[in-house]
């Protein structure tokens, strides 16, 4: 095999040392690299040959340890498995920044405390019921069907790429973040765990319903854990376990029941069902503002043709809700 030809790789690296720098700045380098060279290797080359003060976190270089997550051209990535070629092709250069949603300690190294604190909140360990101890040394087999329920969650390497990409984490410290919730799912479906009900009850008021389902976490995840899809599963399981106890679950259940009535959305009624009358009162000024421009909001929707079919589908698949 012939040696791959090199390309010019312009790299712009975020630099910041709190205490020394008043604001972050970017330092530009141009490297000659083969297109398949990982971004991490480019950074290590910069550190070895051009600037020994560049700080970054990495370890295995094999996409297993999860240490080198950072922003590559604004996307959360593992630097060790992101080749430089396609980045230069798409963006003309490679802008390297630290992960978001965690304070910068120096250059590309962030303080991961917010990420790990959220993780600890979900108590990520098997909980056994002391009243029903497992016999010493007894095997604890799982059926293939039980193993299948874990889906992709055991693949998580805790790199925090999802935490960095999540707009709910960015906007609300009460949101546990995609990884913590994907891990929670993993324990909820574990047949050995005996705190399932308690976990599902606790998570409803503790941020489960702040997930936007924007799927940015699923896009960012280097291991295809698909956190947004497992969070959806958690929501359905939480409602099944305890009912709709929070505005978020009330909204999901109200929405489902709302469509049963006319086949199409009754916006006014949904607002009433989700907020409840007292909370709805606070929303009235905003509602009135919108209705001045969009008077249809007030109207009852015209039922769809074939509403009886919709009713029968509900009767078959949503029997709990039958009066």
């Amino acid at each position, binding site marked *: 095999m012939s040696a791959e030809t090199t390309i010019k790789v312009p790299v712009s690296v975020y630099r910041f040392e709190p205490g020394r720098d008043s604001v972050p700045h970017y330092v530009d380098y141009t490297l000659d690299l083969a297109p398949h060279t990982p971004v991490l290797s480019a950074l290590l080359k910069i550190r070895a040959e051009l600037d020994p003060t560049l700080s970054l976190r990495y370890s295995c270089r094999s996409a297993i340890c999860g240490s080198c997550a950072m922003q590559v051209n*604004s*996307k959360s990535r593992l630097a060790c498995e992101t080749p430089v070629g396609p980045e230069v092709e*798409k963006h003309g250069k490679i802008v390297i920044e630290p992960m978001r949603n965690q304070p910068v300690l120096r250059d590309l190294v962030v303080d991961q405390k917010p990420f790990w604190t959220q993780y600890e909140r979900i108590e990520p360990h098997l909980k056994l019921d002391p009243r029903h101890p497992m016999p010493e040394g007894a095997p604890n087999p799982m059926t293939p069907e039980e193993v299948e329920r874990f889906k992709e969650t055991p693949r998580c390497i805790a790199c925090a790429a999802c935490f960095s990409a999540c*707009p*709910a984490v*960015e*906007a*609300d410290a009460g949101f546990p973040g995609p990884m913590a919730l994907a891990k929670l799912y993993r324990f909820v479906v574990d047949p050995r765990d005996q705190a399932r009900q308690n976990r599902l009850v606790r998570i409803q008021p503790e941020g489960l*319903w*702040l*997930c*936007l*389902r*924007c*799927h*940015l976490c*699923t*896009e960012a995840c280097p291991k295809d854990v*698909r956190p*947004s*899809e497992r969070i*959806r599963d958690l*929501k*359905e399981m939480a*409602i099944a376990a305890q009912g*709709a106890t929070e*505005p*978020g*679950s009330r*909204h*999901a*259940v109200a*929405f*489902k029941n709302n*469509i049963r009535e006319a*086949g*199409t*959305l009754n*916006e006014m009624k949904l607002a009433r069902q*989700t*907020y409840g009358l007292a909370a709805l009162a606070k929303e009235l000024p*905003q509602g009135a*503002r*919108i209705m001045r*421009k*969009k008077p*249809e*909001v007030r109207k009852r*929707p015209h039922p*769809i*043709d*074939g509403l009886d*079919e*919709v009713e*029968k*589908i*509900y009767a*078959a*698949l*949503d029997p709990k809700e039958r009066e």
Partner: protein
Amino acid sequence: MKLAYYPGCVAQESGKELDMATRWVCRALGIELVPFPSFSCCGSGFMDEANEVLNVAINARNLAIAEKAGLDLLTICSTCTGMLSLANLRMQDEKVRARVDGALKPLGIEYHGTVKVKHLLRVLTEDVGLAAVKAKVVRPLAGLKVGAFYGCHLLRPADELQSESAEEPHAFEDLLAAIGADPVYYRGRVMCCGFPIQFVKGETASRIGGRQILDAKTHGADAMATPCPLCHISLDAYQNRAEAAVGQRLDMPVFHLPQVVGLALGASPEELGLSRHLVPTDIALAKVRAAPRA
């Protein structure tokens, strides 16, 4: 071109201007829209959180209606597109399919999985084609800097939706360029508008929406445009709250996708229902009017 028209709930109610603009644009481009009064709501990403299989079944019924008529489905909402596409995908799972069929077959409904769910953006850029759209432009939106705002469910999960590159999409920007506008690229264009948690924690939702508007503004956008009426609610109807959340005036006109296309194709503001927006679109319209006609 003939398509089953799936307007979705919002375009038939508070977002009626989206329906008006879609019909105008499709008429102008020779796209025949076949209405089906039997279409139900797609579930909007909420119904399935309470009962996923029910939601798949409801959408399999919608898809079966189009299939029976031998038509692909035209959507004008990112969320409708996402939910109907996901139903298409979930129906390939044997266990899900068995449960759904168990509910649908007794009603004489069967879905064979042949219907393509196509958002208007895709129909305009792929089926009609940018050249054909461009040929119909009578009032290029020259000088108008527009920030496209895609809406999550049009893009992600990319592998499931088989969408264009979810990370670096450009179909909307290409369309904006074809109608003479200057597309503005900014990080927020592929982010979330905050709508899904507007009812859960309005303040957080508005902070998220506000950040994207601010991002578009910082990158020089005179206006934003979205293919999703739910994003439109967040960005337009709740922009006052977004302003409060980010602590500054935004004054950002937000168009529905067919409204910007309609403007370039010669529709009047009345025909596009622009007076129904909460944030006035005058500033953007003045820029368009000042530009020379083609």
